């Protein structure tokens, strides 16, 4: 599957992916904000607004709290690095990015977990009340979302016989009837719930809240300013882009570039952008339709995701 592809074009494809997600992630966030604004009857900011925000933040100064340690400046780099590396090895635009042979789904899951842990530590570092609160909540939600995520991912892996992402996509391309099978659909449902939780969207977390007591993710990053805030935001936006496009690609892999010609890559970029935008609009509509859940109602939602993923495995075993 990865034989005889020269590493230069692979490297270019990888670079293309990183650039596409680095630009596309913020655009997705902007797109979701736009959809929400339109549903409220507003015009809303242009979808490029998050990019403008980032550009502006880069020109500002960095501030560090008095009690903060080296963890505070380190965490944005870790968040950024885990996001970029996860994007680089995941087959999004092309089925064989550099390191595609070792693009294991578990690597992606644990890279993202590392990013979350870094954010939580950054929340605890300045020694404020709200930072600790955000860290505690984010880790709780992460811990509850983790089982659903891993088991859903395993459901896909059992079906394909490998947890290697290009392998999963290749076997899906070869067996299109899987896509509408109950196992896939259940795994999709579970993954959607997890993705909403992991990207901090309503009903799990409200990314635009101003009330500290209701915050989850925002509370952890209250201390960041300027370029560091830009790194955190970009890392988070890339994570959104990665998760959405990964969901889109796992369930509808068609259109992804299977060889590295310029045309295939261009087509792959366009198709993955469209698929991902579709997922983003769907998530935005879910956000518009629902109210944020209380923290202690979240276990119900995530347990639902977990049961769906177990169901996905069992139906996968029954129907194989």
């Amino acid at each position: 599957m990865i034989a005889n592809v020269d590493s230069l074009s692979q490297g270019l494809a990888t670079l293309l992916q990183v650039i596409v997600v680095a630009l596309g992630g913020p655009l997705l966030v902007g797109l979701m904000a736009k959809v929400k604004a339109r549903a409220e009857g507003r015009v809303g900011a242009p979808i490029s607004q998050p990019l403008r925000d980032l550009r502006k933040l880069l020109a500002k100064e960095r501030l560090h709290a008095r009690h903060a340690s080296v963890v505070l400046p380190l965490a944005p780099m870790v968040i950024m690095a885990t996001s970029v590396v996860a994007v680089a090895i995941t087959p999004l635009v092309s089925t064989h990015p550099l390191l595609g042979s070792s693009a294991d789904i578990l690597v992606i899951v644990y890279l993202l977990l590392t990013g979350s842990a870094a954010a939580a530590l950054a929340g605890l570092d300045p020694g404020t009340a709200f930072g600790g609160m955000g860290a505690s909540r984010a880790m709780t939600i992460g811990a509850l979302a983790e089982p659903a995520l891993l088991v859903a991912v395993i459901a896909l892996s059992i079906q394909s016989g490998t947890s290697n992402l290009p392998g999963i996509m290749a076997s899906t391309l070869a067996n299109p009837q899987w896509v509408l099978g109950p196992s896939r659909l259940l795994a999709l449902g579970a993954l959607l719930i997890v993705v909403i939780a992991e990207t901090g969207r309503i009903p799990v977390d409200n990314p635009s809240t101003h009330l500290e007591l209701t915050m989850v993710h925002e509370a952890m990053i209250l201390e960041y300013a300027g370029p560091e805030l830009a790194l955190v935001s970009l890392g988070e936006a890339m994570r959104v882009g990665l998760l959405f496009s990964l969901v889109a690609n796992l369930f509808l892999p068609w259109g992804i570039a299977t060889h590295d010609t310029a045309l295939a890559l261009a087509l792959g970029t366009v198709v993955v952008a469209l698929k991902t935008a579709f997922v983003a609009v769907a998530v935005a509509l879910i956000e518009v339709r629902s109210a944020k859940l209380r923290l202690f109602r979240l276990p119900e939602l995530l347990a639902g995701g977990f049961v769906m993923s177990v169901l996905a495995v069992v139906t996968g075993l029954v129907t194989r």
Partner: protein
Amino acid sequence: MGWFLAALVLCGAAALVGAGLPRRVRVAGSALLGAAGCLIALAVALRTLIAGDTLTWHTTQILPFTGLSLSLDPLAAWFILASSFVGLAACLYNVGYAKGAMASRSAQSLFMVFVLTLIAVPAASSIMSLMFWWELMALSSLLLILTDQSRHREARSAALWYGAMTQIGAASILMGLLVMTSGGAGQSFADLRSHSSSLSPLAQSFAFVLVLLGFASKAGAVPLHVWLPKAHPEAPSPVSALMSSAMVAMGVYGIIRVGEDLLHGGTPWWWIAVALLGVVSAFYGALHATTSTDLKRLLAYSTIDIIGLVLIGVGAAGALKDNGQLGAAHVALSAALLLVVAHAAFKGALFLGAGAIERATGTRNLDLLGGLIHAMPVTALVVAISAGSIMAVPTLSGFSGEWLLLQGLLHGFATTSTPTVIVMLLGVIALALTGGLTAVAFVKSFGIGFLGQARSSGARDAREVAVSMRLAMLLLVVPSVALGVAPGLLVAMLSRATTSALGGKLASPLDAGTGLVLSRLGGAIAPAALLVGLVAVMALAWLLNQTLAQRRARRVEAWGCGRDLQTSRMQYTATSFAEPLQRVFADVLRPQSDVEVTHVAESRYYEQSLMYENRVVDVLEARGYRPLIAAAQRLGRVARGLQNGSIHRYLAFGFVALVVILVVVG
């Protein structure tokens, strides 16, 4: 083999030096000899794993009647690799750590005996030799728990629990092994190995269950774990490190040695039982680790969690082998063994780190710590990397182990036996559940312990610990990084160890390289490349920060929403950090909390003081063991009524017993 004996002799000499020399030279001298012994044992273990042969030795000089037999095959060498490495670090650490009671003759000598037994147990190759080392290991560690007199009550209770559990366990192991000798086999492992297939399946299963009970209780498998979260924290830190990283591994070793090697794998349900023990342990341990606030107790529970994962690997391997899926079985067992070594290193480092914190601040209660990263940067680095490893951060050793375990389970799904598939499924679920919970536990212990502001005067006045302690901790970080970045370097040795356990030809599907590659099963990770990528991006981000904005960040007061007063008491504590999860899992944890409000005299609307207390006790201990002990005590009281000193009654007992025996036999 001569070198291995030399290692044992050196450790023994270290024990004698510890017992004999005056205080000034005692600690350094015994540590030096002990470290040398560990180093040699380490080298011998590596040699055996590379050569793949088996060394044996027998003497009748030491143990009367039966003699002492030792044998070093790759499986034993793998476990010696773990214990001798941690032993080395612990000896080094002890130089700076030993003060007061720990520096006494008895403590120093027992410590070295403990190190010696941890190296010797896997090499034992007859029933009597195994039991000899095993009991010596139990006894020395038991007495070491009682060293620290500052927490007299807790230590005594811990020692009582530990002593009772370990003796029952040892008796169970001995009985199981003796059952295997029934029908006239000798007591050496070679005899047992050739004889065991002639045993009836029932006798085999009986023997395995007895042995499993003993070894699983040593490994800390739930529900036989109750002694572990008491005993490991109460021991002095280098001893806790050895207990938690090397001694629990001996339980795993015993299960593999007896079940796979001596009994040739038996039937699938044995291994399903082992895996189920693992599933329960992993979940229970991880859950209690997240809610513990005593740092060492948290680490002890996390040991139960990781050993649970190891047992899942061992159980899955056994079940898969019995179903004819040798490839997946090798992967699962490799995962278990890799996790044993990875766990030995990171848990050893964490316990030594906890000891450093206790030494520097006088407490190990996370609720009273905070901000230690400023005063103790080396300890912080060690704990951060080890915690990252246990959280399975990619490019650290825990991830390699967990990835491999998941691959074993994933490919185990191909089996046709439904119970085995269920074991795979439960294993995956346990892995998934513990992944998130472990992350909470260790973000908590690092974030609350080392970051933020100090929550007590002890934490405020902390200083970094002695150089030897720092060096020892750094030594234990090396495997975490090495096994994470280049796990492939150990693949050849790992294959020899799994082959010597599972039997047959060298059949591991793991390919050699720096990363882990399962080319036949279609899975691979390349952590070295990941590390390069991560470091490159971080360097770019750092450059961005340096070039775009002003070079140094401006130091300002933390943003506290404009409040004038901000104190360290406003921070989240370890208890509050884990409170949401504690609430979610209240059905399992059964937390108890008390709120006590005192009002001012003038008005009951104003509170003078408010006390909140939150406790999580081990449910299995409170609901499972306590009633059992109470019942035993009642039985004892009844039995006391039977003996009234009358000789007639005692004779009558004998007579009744005789009649009963005759009836039964007849």
